[in-house]
C-alpha cells in the first residue's frame, strides 16, 4: 500500500517544524512561528488520516522499516513504524487533538508571554510542543519496545520542559523556583516508572530474545509485574500519581495536551499494545484493575475538595486514567481505548476552556493595552489568583461561549447520555461488572463523585454572583482560542458514536489488531447504564442543592465543609499524600543524603580517608622514597659507580710509569707469552 509508506512523516513533519522554529522562530514573529508549528502538527494529522483511509482498505496494516537501528549479537532492533488499527487510533488522537491545541496555544501564549513579560519565549513554546508531538508519534508508531521507550523518554522530557516552561517563576507569576521544582517532581516520579519499563524490557528480551512486538506478542508468557510499575508512573496511578497535579504549573495548553489528552494515556496504550502478555497473567491483570479502580476513587475524592480550577481537572484526569487502567487491566482493552479517545476530547476541552476562563479573568484583572507592563506596576497590584474558583462566579454571562463548551465537557465527563463520556464510561462499567465486582463498586463510586465535582465546579465558576472584581468584568477570549473549543465540544458531543452499543464499530476496528478473543464487544447493560446515569444526575442535583440553590458568597467557606467536617479537610489537603511521601521517602532520603554528605563523604571520606589515610600515607611514602630510596639507593649507585671508576683508575695508573722501556718490556713479555701459547698448545 502506497499510503503506508508515508507513515514516517508523522514523526518527520513535527521534527521539521521544531527545527524550523528553533532556527527562525524568533525572527518569524508570533504569527510565523505559530503557523510553522500548526502546519507541522496538521501535516502529521493529514498523514495519520491517510493511514486511516488506507487501513480501511487493508485492515491488516503494515510495518514500515527505515533501517537497522541496533544489531548486537542476538539483539536486532530495526527502526520500524507499525501501522495497525491500534497505533493509527492513537496517531489520530495525538495529532488531531494536538493540532487543535496548537491553534489554541497560538492565541493563549500571545497573552501568556506578555503576562510573564518574556515575549521571546513564544517560539520556544512551539518548539517544545512540536517536539512533544514527534516523541508521542514515535511512541505510538513504534514496532518494538525499545523504540517505544525512545518516544516514552521523549515525551517525559517534553513534559519536564513544558511544566518548567516558566522556570524562573512560581505558579502565581512571581519570581521563584516552584515551577522548576514541579518539573523536577514530574521527571523523578516518571523516572521511577521508567525503571520498571526497563526491567520489563530486560525481562521480555530474556524471555523471548527479541523486543519487536511481532516476535514477542504471539507467545505470551510471564513478564507482567514490571509493566505495572511503568503504568503507575506515566499514567499517574497510585502510588506514583503525585506529579500530575503539580504538573499544572505548565501553561494551560500543555496541561491539556500532555497531562490530560495524550502523554498520560501512554500507559493505557502500552497495556493495550501488550494485551496478549497481560491476558496470560490473570494476577497481574487483577492488580492493574484494582490499582486503576482505587486510583479512580481516590483521586475523585481529592478533586471534590479542590479550589483551583486546574487542580480539580488534574485530579479528575488521574481519576479518569484510573478508569482506563482498570479497563485494560480487566481485559476490556477496547473499552479502555475507547475511553482514552473520548477522554482526550472532553478533557482537552475542559482544560482549554479552563484556560479561557483563567485568561478572561487575567485580562479583566490587568488589561494589557497592547504593551508589556513594567515590573513595578505588576508588583504594585494586589495579589489575585485567577485560578481560584472562589474568585469566580456568575461568569456564564460574561463569557457565554466558554460557558457552553465547558458545560458540554463537564456533562461528557460526568457521563450524562448521550455525550461521549457516557458511552465509554458505561462500557467500562459493564465490563467491570462482569469481570470484577470490587472494581465495579470502586468505579461506580468514582463516577458518582466525578459528576458531583464537575457539577460543583460548573456551579462555582459560572453560576451565582461574581465573587471578585475581575469576574464581573471578564471578557470572552478571541476566536483563535474559542474555535478549537467549539471543535472539541463537537467531538465531545459526538465522539461516543464511534462505538455505539449495537454497532460496535470501534470494537471491530481494533479487532484487526487485538484479535477476536481480546477485542470482544460487551453487551450493552441497561441496568448498569441506568444506574450510572441516575447516579450522575443525582450527583449533579446534590451539587446543585449545595452550590446552586444558595450560591457561594465571597469569603464564605465551602458548604460541604460543614457537612463533611474532617473528611472534607482531608480532601482539601489531598489526604496529605504529599506530606506522607515527604515523611516516608523524601525526608528520610534527605536525611540519608545529609548523612552521606556530612558523615560519609566529608568526615569519613574527605577527612579520614583523604586527609589521614591517603595524604599521610602518601607523605610517608614520599619520605621513604626520598630518603632511603633516592638518597640511599639511587645516589648510592651513582656515587658508587664514580668511586669505583676512580679507584680503578688509581690502581691502573700504577702501571702507567711513563717509561717507554717498561711498556716495551710488557709488550715483549706479552708477545713471548702468546708465542709460547701458540707453540705449546698445538
Amino acid at each position, binding site marked *: 500500500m502506497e499510503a503506508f509508506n508515508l507513515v514516517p512523516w508523522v514523526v518527520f513533519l513535527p521534527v521539521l517544524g521544531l527545527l524550523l522554529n528553533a532556527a527562525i522562530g524568533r525572527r518569524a514573529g508570533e504569527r510565523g512561528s505559530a503557523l510553522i508549528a500548526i502546519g507541522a502538527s496538521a501535516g502529521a494529522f493529514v498523514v495519520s488520516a491517510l493511514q486511516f483511509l488506507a487501513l480501511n482498505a487493508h485492515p491488516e496494516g503494515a510495518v514500515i522499516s527505515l533501517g537497522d537501528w541496533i544489531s548486537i549479537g542476538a539483539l536486532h532492533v530495526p527502526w520500524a513504524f507499525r501501522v495497525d488499527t491500534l497505533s493509527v487510533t492513537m496517531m489520530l488522537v495525538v495529532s488531531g487533538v494536538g493540532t487543535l491545541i496548537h491553534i489554541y496555544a497560538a492565541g493563549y501564549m500571545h497573552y501568556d508571554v506578555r503576562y510573564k513579560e518574556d515575549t521571546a519565549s513564544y517560539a520556544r513554546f512551539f518548539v517544545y510542543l512540536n517536539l512533544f508531538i514527534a516523541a508521542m508519534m514515535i511512541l505510538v508508531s513504534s514496532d518494538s519496545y525499545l523504540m517505544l521507550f525512545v518516544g516514552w523518554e521523549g515525551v517525559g522530557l517534553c513534559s519536564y520542559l513544558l511544566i518548567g516552561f516558566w522556570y524562573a517563576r512560581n505558579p502565581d507569576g512571581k519570581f521563584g523556583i516552584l515551577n522548576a521544582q514541579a518539573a523536577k517532581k514530574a521527571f523523578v516520579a516518571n523516572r521511577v516508572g521508567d525503571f520498571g519499563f526497563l526491567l520489563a524490557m530486560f525481562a521480555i528480551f530474556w524471555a523471548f530474545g527479541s523486543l519487536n512486538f511481532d516476535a514477542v506478542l504471539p507467545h505470551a508468557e510471564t513478564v507482567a509485574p514490571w509493566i505495572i510499575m511503568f503504568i503507575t508512573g506515566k499514567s499517574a496511578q497510585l502510588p506514583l500519581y503525585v506529579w500530575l497535579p503539580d504538573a499544572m504549573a505548565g501553561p494551560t495548553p500543555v496541561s491539556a495536551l500532555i497531562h490530560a489528552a495524550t502523554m498520560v494515556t501512554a500507559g493505557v496504550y502500552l497495556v493495550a499494545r501488550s494485551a496478549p502478555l497481560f491476558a496470560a497473567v490473570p494476577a497481574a491483570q487483577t492488580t492493574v484493575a484494582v490499582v486503576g479502580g482505587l486510583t479512580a476513587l481516590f483521586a475523585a475524592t481529592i478533586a471534590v475538595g479542590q479550589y483551583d480550577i486546574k487542580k480539580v481537572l488534574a485530579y479528575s484526569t488521574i481519576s479518569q486514567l484510573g478508569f482506563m487502567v482498570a479497563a485494560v487491566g480487566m481485559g476490556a482493552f477496547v473499552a479502555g481505548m475507547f475511553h482514552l479517545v473520548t477522554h482526550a476530547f472532553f478533557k482537552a476541552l475542559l482544560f482549554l476552556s479552563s484556560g479561557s476562563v483563567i485568561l478572561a479573568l487575567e485580562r479583566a484583572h490587568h488589561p494589557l493595552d497592547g504593551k508589556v507592563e513594567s515590573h513595578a506596576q505588576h508588583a504594585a497590584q494586589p495579589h489575585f489568583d485567577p485560578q481560584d474558583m472562589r474568585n469566580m462566579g456568575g461568569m456564564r454571562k460574561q463569557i457565554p461561549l466558554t460557558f457552553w463548551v465547558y458545560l458540554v465537557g463537564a456533562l461528557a465527563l460526568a457521563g450524562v447520555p448521550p455525550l461521549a463520556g457516557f458511552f465509554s464510561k458505561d462500557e467500562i462499567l459493564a465490563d467491570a461488572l462482569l469481570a470484577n465486582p470490587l472494581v465495579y463498586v470502586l468505579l461506580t463510586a468514582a463516577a458518582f463523585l466525578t459528576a458531583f465535582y464537575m457539577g460543583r465546579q460548573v456551579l462555582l465558576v459560572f453560576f451565582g454572583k461574581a465573587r471578585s472584581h475581575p469576574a464581573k468584568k471578564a471578557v470572552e477570549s478571541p476566536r483563535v482560542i474559542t474555535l478549537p473549543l467549539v471543535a472539541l465540544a463537537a467531538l465531545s458531543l459526538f465522539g461516543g458514536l464511534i462505538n455505539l452499543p449495537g454497532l460496535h464499530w470501534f470494537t471491530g476496528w481494533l479487532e484487526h489488531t487485538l484479535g477476536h478473543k481480546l477485542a470482544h464487544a460487551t453487551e450493552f447493560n441497561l441496568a448498569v447504564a441506568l444506574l450510572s446515569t441516575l447516579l450522575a444526575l443525582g450527583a449533579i442535583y446534590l451539587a446543585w442543592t449545595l452550590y446552586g440553590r444558595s450560591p457561594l458568597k465571597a469569603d464564605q467557606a465551602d458548604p460541604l465543609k460543614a457537612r463533611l467536617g474532617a473528611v472534607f479537610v482531608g480532601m482539601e489537603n489531598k489526604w496529605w499524600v504529599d506530606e506522607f511521601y515527604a515523611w516516608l521517602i523524601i525526608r528520610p532520603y534527605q536525611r540519608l543524603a545529609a548523612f552521606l554528605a556530612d558523615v560519609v563523604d566529608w568526615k569519613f571520606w574527605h577527612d579520614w580517608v583523604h586527609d589521614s589515610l591517603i595524604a599521610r600515607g602518601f607523605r610517608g611514602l614520599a619520605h621513604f622514597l626520598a630518603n632511603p630510596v633516592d638518597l640511599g639507593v639511587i645516589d648510592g649507585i651513582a656515587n658508587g659507580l664514580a668511586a669505583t671508576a676512580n679507584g680503578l683508575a688509581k690502581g*691502573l*695508573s*700504577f*702501571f*702507567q*710509569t*711513563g*717509561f*717507554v*722501556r717498561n711498556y*716495551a*718490556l710488557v709488550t*715483549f713479555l706479552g708477545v713471548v707469552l702468546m708465542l709460547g701459547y701458540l707453540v705449546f698448545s698445538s
Partner: protein
Amino acid sequence: MVPVSYYFALSAILFALGALGVLVRRNAIVVFMSVELMLNAANLLFVAFARSYAALNGQIYVFFVIAVAAAEVAIGLALIVAIFRTKQSIDIDEISSLKG
C-alpha cells in the same frame, strides 16, 4: 749451500740482541739502533726463506721494511733532536712526564 736453520739461528741471535738493547739501554740513540737491529734480523729471515722456497714475496717484503725503516729513522731522529733540545739529554729514563 748454507741451511736455513743457520740463518734462523743468526736471525734469532740478532733479534734477541736488539730486544735486549731496547730494554736495557738508556741512550735513546742506542735504543734506536737496537730497533734497527731487530728489523734487520727479521729482514734476514725473510730473505733466507725466500731463497729457500724460491719465492720472491719475502724479498719484496724486505724492500717494504727497508723503506718503512728509512722513514722511521727520519722521524725518530727528529724526535730525538727535539727531545734533546728541550731536556738537554737523551737519557730515556729521564723522559717520564706521561706517568699516570
